[in-house]
Structure formats: structure tokens, C-alpha cells
């Protein structure tokens, strides 16, 4: 019996032995690699999707290799970043300020790996923060909502009460009121980024309770659900973000506020290649082209309103739209 146990042990250890010596392909000289992690999914049709697309687009232009890990639990942020650092990825893209602590910790342990923190406020030797201007996003959406509403009631759906969402809501409201002080803004948080059914329900209740006719959202798949509710009714509109979600003959999306995260990620990649990474924050706004007005639905938005809106956009760009 001892013999047999021994034989099994030997076989097992042999098996383990053979599989613990993998051949890790060493990246060739000049080959750059970027990895991103995400606490949601890359196919959520919102934040995760646009960040993933940004990385892929930027990497394609720069000829970098990409990798991603999505649906990462909060407790595993550091684990995943450590893994990519160990695998000698040059740049790790962390799209959101929830990764701040983990980025700080891992960037200290791996000084030779570079980190790009979206919406962050960390500037060290190997961390660059990237900051699309949430205030301008809110203004852009608010101005259009203000021009488009006929019922003088507009809505906003947030996913979670995070600071960028709060900023967007505040500036959205400010911009709406600037266009017409009589307009009311209703807002609600879904408490989720992926419960599309809840989004539909919130939109329905906003319409039935407050007669809302233009909506803007910052809640990924929840927004998709809200748009479905709007699509079922006449003269109810939605403003898309962060990608250019609409088209010239769209029935619901009047226009999108587009954040070009790819340009921001690309800037970080260039810094890595140039060897001068770190200690700065890259801002993204209308001025540098990282924020843009998307495609208008010509079917829903009259030429007149489009022109009026573009005037306001110029004011927002110049900083004269709302004086602080």
C-alpha cells in the first residue's frame, strides 16, 4: 500500500513539476504593453465600455499590446495590478478614482511600472492622473437639455453618488437654470450601473411624476434601460455619454457629450515612450478636444436649436457661460 501511495505522490509531484515551469514569453525590445482593470464589465455600454474602447483605440494607434481584467472585486484591485506589474506591463490604466489607494500602494512597490489614473489626483514619479472635465460635461448636457425641453422638466439619473457624478449633476442643473430659470431638474440614483430594468423604471416614474421630457444619465447600463422607456413614448429625449451614441436619424438620443478618453490615454503612452513619465495631471476639456459635441439627431433637433446650442458650447469653452 505504501508503494502505491508513493507512486501516486511521485506522479503528482512530477505533474506539478512539469506545469510549474511555463515559458513566459519575454517582450521584445521596444514592445510596449498596456493593461487595464475594471470593477464593472467592458460590455456595459457605458463607462467600462468607453474606457476599454479608449485603451484599445489608443493602443492601436501607438502599436501597443493590450490586456484587461474586468469585474474585479474591490478587495482584488491591488492583486490584479500587482499581477500586471509582475508581467512587465509598461503602463497600467486604472479608470476611476476608486482605484486611487491601490494605485498608490502598487506604484510604490513597482517603481518601474507606470500608472495612469483616470479622474484621479495622484501625481508621483510613476503615476499620471487624467482628468476629463466633469463640470464641462454637465454644462454641455444641461445647456442642450434646457434648449430642448418643452415641458420645462428635465431629469438626471446617476449610478452611484460618486464625485464626478455629483459634479455632473450640479453643473447640469446650473446650465439648465442658466438657459431658463423656470426649468425643474429631477434626479435619482439607481444604486447600480448594470440594472437596466431599474433604469427603465426610474425613467418611467420621472415622466409620470414630473412630466420630464429630456434626460441625461451617468449610470452605464441603467441609462440604456432609461432610454428604452423614453423610446416607448412620443417627444421624450435622451442625451448620450461618454461615447457618441446617437446618429442623424436617432429617435431618442438628440446628441451625445463625447469624452475622448483615447486621446488622454494616448498622451500617457507617449510620455512612457518618451521616458518622461509622471508628476502631472492631464486635463481633458473642450479646449484640447478631449470633450466634444457628438452627432445631432437632425430628426429631433431643429437647425435653429443646433446653432443656438453651438453658440452656448463656444461660451462654455471660453468659460463665459457660467461665471463663478
Amino acid at each position, binding site marked *: 500500500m505504501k508503494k502505491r501511495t508513493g507512486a501516486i505522490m511521485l506522479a503528482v509531484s512530477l505533474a506539478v513539476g512539469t506545469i510549474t515551469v511555463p515559458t513566459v514569453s519575454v517582450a521584445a525590445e521596444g514592445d510596449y504593453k498596456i493593461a487595464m482593470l475594471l470593477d464593472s464589465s467592458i460590455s456595459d455600454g457605458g463607462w467600462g465600455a468607453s474606457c476599454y474602447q479608449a485603451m484599445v483605440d489608443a493602443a492601436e494607434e501607438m502599436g501597443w499590446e493590450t490586456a484587461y481584467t474586468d469585474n474585479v472585486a474591490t*478587495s482584488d484591485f491591488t*492583486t490584479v495590478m500587482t499581477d500586471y506589474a509582475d508581467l512587465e506591463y509598461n503602463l497600467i490604466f486604472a479608470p476611476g478614482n476608486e482605484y486611487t489607494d491601490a494605485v498608490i500602494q502598487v506604484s510604490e512597490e513597482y517603481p518601474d511600472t507606470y500608472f495612469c489614473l483616470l479622474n484621479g489626483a495622484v501625481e508621483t514619479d510613476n503615476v499620471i492622473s487624467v482628468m476629463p472635465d466633469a463640470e464641462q460635461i454637465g454644462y454641455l448636457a444641461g445647456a442642450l437639455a434646457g434648449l430642448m425641453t418643452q415641458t420645462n422638466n428635465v431629469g438626471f439619473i446617476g449610478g452611484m453618488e*460618486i464625485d464626478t457624478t455629483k459634479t455632473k449633476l450640479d453643473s447640469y442643473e446650473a446650465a439648465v437654470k442658466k438657459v431658463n430659470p423656470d426649468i425643474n431638474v429631477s434626479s435619482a440614483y439607481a*444604486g447600480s450601473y448594470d440594472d437596466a430594468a431599474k433604469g427603465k423604471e426610474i425613467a418611467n416614474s420621472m415622466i409620470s411624476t414630473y412630466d420630464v421630457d429630456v434626460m441625461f444619465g451617468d449610470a452605464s447600463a441603467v441609462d440604456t434601460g432609461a432610454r428604452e422607456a423614453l423610446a416607448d413614448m412620443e417627444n421624450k429625449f435622451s442625451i448620450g455619454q461618454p461615447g457618441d451614441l446617437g446618429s442623424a436619424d436617432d429617435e431618442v438620443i438628440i446628441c451625445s457629450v463625447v469624452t475622448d478618453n483615447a486621446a488622454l490615454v494616448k498622451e500617457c503612452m507617449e510620455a512612457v515612450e518618451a521616458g518622461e513619465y509622471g508628476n502631472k495631471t492631464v486635463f481633458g476639456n473642450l479646449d484640447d478636444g478631449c470633450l466634444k459635441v457628438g452627432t445631432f439627431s437632425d430628426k429631433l433637433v431643429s437647425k435653429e436649436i443646433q446653432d443656438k446650442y453651438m453658440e452656448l458650447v463656444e461660451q462654455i469653452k471660453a468659460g463665459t457661460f457660467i461665471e463663478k
Partner: protein
Amino acid sequence: MKTKNNLIKILIPVLSILAAFVIGGIIIVCLGKNPLEAYGFLFKGALGKPSKIAQTLEVASPLIFTGLAASFAYKCGMFNLGGEGQFIMGSIVSIVVSTQTGITGVPAIIISVICGALAGGIWGAIPGILKITRGLNEMIVSIMLNYVATLFMGCVFTNILRDGSVPQTPAVPKESQLSNIADGFRVHYGVVIAIILAVIIYYFMFYTSKGFKLRAVGMNPTAARFNGFAVNKIILAAFICSGAVAGLGGSIELHGKQFRLMQGYGAGFGFDGVAIALIAQLNPIGTVIVAIFFGILRKGASTLQAGMKIPTSVVDIIQALVIVFAVAGTALVRLPQVQQFFRVHFSGKRRGAES
């Protein structure tokens, strides 16, 4: 006969896990990747270097606590599915103590951890009280309380204890954090506490009269009642202890690893703990081993995924397969038919032969 049983007890989970890995390997082959290379990444990521082993233990630490919490209640026949809520309530009270009272250093850790355990215990007592006074099903009450705790935590980090503009609480001050066991290794003393706790629970359950009563209630509450045991009191005590262990785990995870509450904190630990406790067949020492195995799997799976560039869901599938096979394996050998088969074929002279 006993050695044979023990051998089977160990061998079956091992074989089941191998079977799960084989199926996982087939999936990886279907994706056009080399499964041996993939599993190489898994082991390398979890156990390849001493520093990796340390990280694996750190990943396992909260799982040990929630696993112990689950097994404690189940030994008494109570399905406590509220580990997550108790874990979170423990963390909430702990963060308040550690950031708002001004106490720092070791006293802060001790007070904070005790308060965390108390909070977990109180949260755990609710399903217990409702069970014995109103006859409410403990599963549903504890699940509801998970949602309430998670939402309450959301309220704490977005409103009550918000740290500036970001929706998260302030971090536990540096001097009140649990230190790492050795420099350069990312594993804190919480793991040691977890293992000591497991030994204490093991001793309590199997070597004390109170532990015996607890198990007796779990096995047959009616018989226990006829024997004059205060069944209700024992049930309530089991819930409180179970909740306290989970709350302690939350508090330690907070002081050792995550340092602050934010979106997604603690999600999934409760249910993982249930799975771990049941795979370990409610044995506290077994719970530690299974939890560490889960730690290896989680840590290694993340390296595997990153290294092989396969969808994250594949490693989740492999993890679920491990649970499916491990439990199916242990259940299989307990089936009367299979036991009979063993008796017929492996008794007498050939007793002790494996499998």
C-alpha cells in the same frame, strides 16, 4: 477502518479538484491556449515566490473568518447567510472607532477590533432573536440584513463619513494599521489571528461541554430539548458568536488590508465563507485549509487571467467547478450504495487500500 476513511476524506477532494482543473483545462484549450502554461501561471502567481505566498494568505484571511462564522452557526443547525452583513457592520463600527475617536496605535486596534466583533455579534443576533421569538426563517432574515448593511455602508461612505469629494471613508491612520508579519511581504497579522481563532473554535466545539451542546442542537434539536438543553439560548448564542467572528473578520480586513470603506467593500465574502465552510464539512481546521486553497485559487486565477489574456469569466467558471466537484466528491462517498461498495471490495485483508 479509520485510516482508510481519513485517507478517502483527503483523497476525494484532491481528486475532485484535479477533475475540475481538467475540465477548466479543456475550456482553455478550446480558447486556443495552452492549459499547462495557464496552470503554471496559476501556481506561480499564488505560490511562486515567498512574497506571493504572503499575498495569497492575505487574500485568504477574510475568507477564513467568514468561513468560520458560517461553520459555527451551521454546527448548531442554523443557516447563517448573513456573513456579509455582519462582516460589513463590524467594519463600519471599526472605522468609526479608528477614525473618529482619536485613539491611535495598538490600543486603537484592540478597541476597534473588539467593537467590530461586538457589532457583528449584534447584527448576527437579530436573525437569532427573530428565529426564537417569532419563528422567522433565519436565511431570509439574514439575507435581508445583508442588503440593509450594504446600503447602510453606502450611506456611511457617501454621507456620514465622507472623505472630501470622494465617496469613501477616511483611511485608518497609519499607526493604527495592523502591521505586516515581515517587511516587504504583504501579509498582516490578521492571518495569525484567524488561525488562532480557528484552533480555539475547534477546541471549543469538540472538547468542551458547551461545544457538545451546540453540536447536539445542530444534530437534533428535538432530542436536545428533551435532554433539557436550553435550545433557544444555544441557538441565539451560536448566532451571536457567528456574527462576532464575521464582524471580527471585517474589522481585521479593514485594519490589515483595505483601510477604508468604499463601493464594493466586503462584497461576496459572506457567500464564499458559506461555500468554504460546507466544503470543509464544518470542521474549523478544515475551514482554514479550504479558505487558504480558495485564496490560492483567487490569487492565482487573477495571475492566470492576466498572463493568458483569457476572459475573466473563465477563471470564475473554474472556481465554481472546483466547488461543484469537491462537494460532489465528498457527497458521493457518503452515499449508502458507495459505502456498501467500499465495504464489499475493500474490507478484510485489503483494508487501507486507497480509493
